[in-house]
């Protein structure tokens, strides 16, 4: 496998506020990387750096081993980004999708390709191609923007919230189109989304971003502040139903801590445990199937917090887990890490 992107010691600032802080990140050719993280964590910023629309304040980004400049030929014709708010040019849908082809002076079989691109996002060519940019619903606009990217058959496709405000059917279509791009054209994909279910159904690897830092091991569970001090050096997080979590030392000035999925165990009932453990009750809110990993991802709400855990189908059957069910989460205090 070859690396399409290599990021080294990236620091990015907006008015002295550090919004990205990535020491090392490699994105392989043909991979589908999911970017997950709360609002303002830096997903869109990272995507903007990857298309070289902005330059990082510090550090280097190598594209195929070379540091590229904005507007360099290598980027322009190969990398394309679907921005978070889709923006359409003030022209027809057809012209919007044709724009990128026109730029590339690619006049080959344009109508058919536009038709294909539109059908990939579930829009009918006859009905939509002649529409003006403002004669579309929110989701339709989003899908037209997506089609305008797909038609370019790019080497690298960066998608920023491609299915926000897109309906379920179309989300499925977009997923298929994306997977097909990866297969047919060997496209490398980086996708930021809050729709975890959708994202997990499509991405090979997930990168979790929090406060501009990346945690490349998949979705960890985050415990966000405010915290109170406890027993001198420890901290506690109070939940609104009276339960609380104890956090380890070293959390001064920190805004969040992390606990890995593998370190959390599930029980039907509370057990007697020694001091070093957190034990608390949560409710399963939803469950979905991760096709790629043949496992089930469950979302568990602990009042204001929410944890995500993975189960095998057997485990689900055995524990009779289903949405709405209350379960007990247990994990070592020392397994929690400050972020």
């Amino acid at each position, binding site marked *: 496998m070859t690396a399409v992107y290599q990021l080294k010691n990236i620091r990015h600032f907006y008015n002295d506020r550090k919004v990205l802080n990535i020491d090392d990140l490699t994105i392989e050719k043909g991979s589908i990387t999911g970017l997950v993280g709360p609002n303002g964590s830096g997903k869109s910023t990272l995507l903007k750096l990857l298309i070289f629309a902005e330059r990082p304040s510090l550090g280097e980004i190598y594209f195929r081993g070379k540091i590229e400049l904005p*507007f360099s030929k290598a980027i322009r014709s190969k990398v*394309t980004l679907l921005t978070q708010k889709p*923006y359409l040019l003030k022209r027809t849908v057809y012209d919007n999708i044709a724009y990128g082809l026109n730029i590339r002076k690619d006049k080959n079989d344009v109508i058919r390709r536009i038709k294909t691109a539109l059908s990939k996002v579930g829009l009918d060519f006859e009905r939509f191609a002649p529409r003006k940019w403002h004669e579309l619903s929110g989701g339709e606009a989003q899908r037209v923007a997506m089609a305008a990217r797909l038609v370019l058959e790019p080497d690298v496709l960066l998608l920023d919230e491609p299915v926000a405000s897109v309906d379920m059917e179309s989300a499925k279509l977009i997923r298929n189109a994306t997977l097909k791009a990866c297969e047919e054209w060997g496209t490398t994909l980086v996708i930021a989304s809050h729709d975890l279910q959708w994202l997990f159904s499509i991405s090979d690897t997930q990168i979790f971003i929090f406060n501009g830092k990346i945690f490349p091991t998949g979705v960890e569970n985050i415990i966000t502040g405010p915290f109170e001090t406890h027993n001198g050096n420890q901290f506690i997080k109070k939940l609104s139903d009276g339960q609380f979590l104890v956090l380890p030392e070293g959390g001064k000035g920190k805004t969040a801590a992390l606990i890995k999925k593998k370190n959390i165990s599930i029980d039907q009932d509370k057990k007697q445990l020694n001091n070093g453990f957190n034990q608390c009750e949560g409710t399963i809110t939803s469950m979905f199937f991760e096709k790629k990993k043949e496992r089930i991802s469950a979302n568990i709400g602990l009042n204001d917090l929410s944890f995500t855990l993975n189960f095998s189908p057997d485990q689900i059957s055995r524990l009779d887990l289903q949405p709405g069910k209350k379960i007990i989460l247990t994990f070592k205090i020392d397994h929690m890490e400050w972020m």
Partner: protein
Amino acid sequence: MDDIVAGIVKAFELLFSGDESTWTAVLATVKVSTCSMLLSIGAGLPCGFLLGYYEFRGKQHLRTVLDTMLALPTVFIGLVVFAFISNQGPLGDFKLLFSLTGIAIGQTILAFPIVTAITATTIEAVDPLFKLTLVSLGAGKRNIIATCLWEVRYGILAGAVTAYGRVLTEVGISMMVGGNIKWHTRTVTTAIALETGKGEFANGIALGIILITLAFAVNLSLSLLRRQ
């Protein structure tokens, strides 16, 4: 008031009787204003784009200077151009004084800041997302310039129409550089000035109406183009 009525009547007379001196002046006006508009748009659009699109040190100062250039008096421009193209000026050998070319040069200087300033303001108002979208679709610098200018074409058109109004109606440059020479460099506006100076107010008003009709014709065609 009588002069206004008389002027309106006279305007029709001049236009439809095919009065030769009037038509010569109209032709001179059309030639010279077309030429100066083409030049000032050709130079003003790219300059305005650069000024509106990019952030750089001293940009604000440049804008202030440009805004000030909007207040260049035509007579002043006329004087300065005169100083350059008069026989004793550095460009005297080109024999531009008392020629339509000379007027066109002066009018280009007049229109350029208007086109540039309004283009820059319009481009500045463009959604940053628009720029990012173009980049994300693989646009190069030239594509961005072209698409940006096209996207804000109505704003630019407004600037151009304003500049056109300015060019079409200016007297100072035409008078100073052109010399208001009958059959040669007399434009409609210098003719108006002449008639007014002679006290022939009705003639002045008639010529004014002719000029406005000309402007109307141009704007009407633009608005038809626009509707498409």
